């Protein structure tokens, strides 16, 4: 049986697959290319001072960021971002699990934590800058202090909302505290935690940029403001593009991790939807 069908189908299949692939590429790249062409034409027809053509920005991008500047300004920024974000996530999940599991602690702390979450994170920068001093530690503390709240509060919420049937099942199977944490509480809370991590990452990126822009003499944010103050417009745009790329990269990493961690969850959702 397999012989018959395979001989009949094979001649048509690859061409259709290629057509499909081509179509996907066209959909994926069509609009960006179109927009870039429009931008390029626009800037050559009516040159605006603050909107150089994409080609000029691309040249500036290569000149500015490819080379030693990448190691002097970009890598340290990314390192601080990574350390800050990872510490914020770890701290948020650890404290959130504890607070979520202990009822009186949760009720005691919830109003205070809600308030801290509501404080716009950038206002913390001047305060932390004067308490810690304008150095690398300050930038990491700023990222942690601003980005920990969404993870913390979402973890509390997720841990609290663990299905009661499952909790009872776990206790009647005499799971130890550690096992219960590992196999029940954290997986049950993980969709919420991941939603918090997503917010945490975007806040962390914002704080990294701002703290460098205004309280630093190196780093990506500092460079962009430096270019702007010296009217190096194309270089400034290249910095914005680089920040955009970092944002996309972060989103991609997050998407990859989320799909792995929440594979079971998305599976359940799909079954429900079907």
């Amino acid at each position, binding site marked *: 049986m397999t012989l018959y069908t395979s001989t009949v189908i094979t001649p048509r299949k690859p061409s259709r697959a290629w057509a499909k692939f081509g179509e996907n590429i066209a959909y994926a790249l069509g609009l960006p290319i179109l927009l870039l062409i429009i931008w390029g034409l626009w800037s050559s027809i009516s040159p605006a001072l603050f909107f150089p053509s994409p080609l000029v920005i691309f040249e500036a991008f290569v000149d500015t960021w490819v080379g030693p500047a990448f190691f002097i300004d970009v890598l340290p920024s990314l390192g601080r971002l990574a350390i800050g974000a990872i510490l914020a996530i770890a701290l948020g999940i650890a404290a959130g699990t504890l607070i979520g599991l202990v009822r009186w602690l949760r*009720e005691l702390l919830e109003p205070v934590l809600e308030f801290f979450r*509501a404080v716009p994170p950038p206002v913390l920068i001047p305060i932390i800058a004067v308490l810690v001093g304008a150095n690398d530690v300050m930038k990491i503390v700023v990222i942690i202090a601003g980005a920990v709240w969404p993870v913390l509060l979402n973890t509390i919420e997720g841990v609290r909302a663990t299905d009661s049937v499952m909790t009872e099942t776990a206790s009647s199977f005499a799971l130890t505290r550690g096992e219960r944490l590992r196999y029940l509480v954290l997986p049950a809370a993980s969709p919420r935690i991941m939603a918090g991590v997503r917010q945490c990452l975007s806040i962390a990126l914002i704080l990294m940029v701002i703290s460098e*822009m205004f309280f630093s003499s190196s780093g990506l944010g500092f460079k*962009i403001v430096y*270019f702007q103050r010296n009217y190096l417009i194309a270089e400034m745009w290249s910095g914005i593009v680089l920040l955009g790329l970092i944002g996309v990269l972060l989103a991609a990493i997050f998407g990859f991790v989320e799909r792995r961690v929440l594979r079971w969850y998305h599976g359940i959702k799909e079954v429900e939807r079907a």
Partner: protein
Amino acid sequence: MVIVDAPATAAPAARRSSRRALRKFALGVAGILGFLVTWQLLPTLGIVDPTYFPTATETLAQLAVEMRDVEFWRNVGRTLTAWGIGLLIATVLAVVLGTVIGLVPFLRRATHTTVEFLRPIPSVALIPLAILMYGYQLQAALLIIVFASFWQVFIQVLYGVADVDSVARDTARSFGLTRGSRIVNLVFPTALPYLMTGLRLAATVALILAITAEMFIGNPGLGRAIMFARDAGQWTTVYALVIVTGVLGLLINLVFRAIERRSLSWHQSVRGEEVL
């Protein structure tokens, strides 16, 4: 609702739940008091420098002084104006574009990569551009606010519009509903919960960016007042204003949660919560 007899167990259950609410309230107040006492003790005992970390009583006293000042309320007004205008522009743009793009599969596919590239760009990266284009004016702040809050609403509307139940859609088609009435009676109710979530997130983000813009672009408002106080070394004022921004954030969150509840009172997610 009125006709249904309350079951016999309802009264003790209600009493238990009211006692639980009381306990929660008391613990919450205790938590706030504990926080204030800790804050008071840290500088008093000299654990942190009292010059840069004033006590809670000093800060609250300063807050009371600020609140008698007209300029303070003007700054609150300016911040909320920038926030409101930015949120409004972003919401209108996002709803219109989100509905159109969400309803047309071709557009949804064609814009996917562009959206996925533009959305993660941190809006603060645009601060230098905003300063170049508009200087210290409100428009500079609006550029940042709109860019940041637009995506929150847009993505939600995009998902919401696409989430229409296929059975409901086919039913509407076979009943011969026109395109306009399908949008009003089918797409809109489906997308509304998504829109409300997006709106609540956007309101918070817009406030963050409004204050960030005032701090670092320099258009007048609470954020600039914080930076002025910092430059003048008035640290109690800085802390008092930071508290004000937190209270504003809290109020905005509460108001939008209430709006969400009210406008979705018919929806399963809200009705379900009330039962529990």
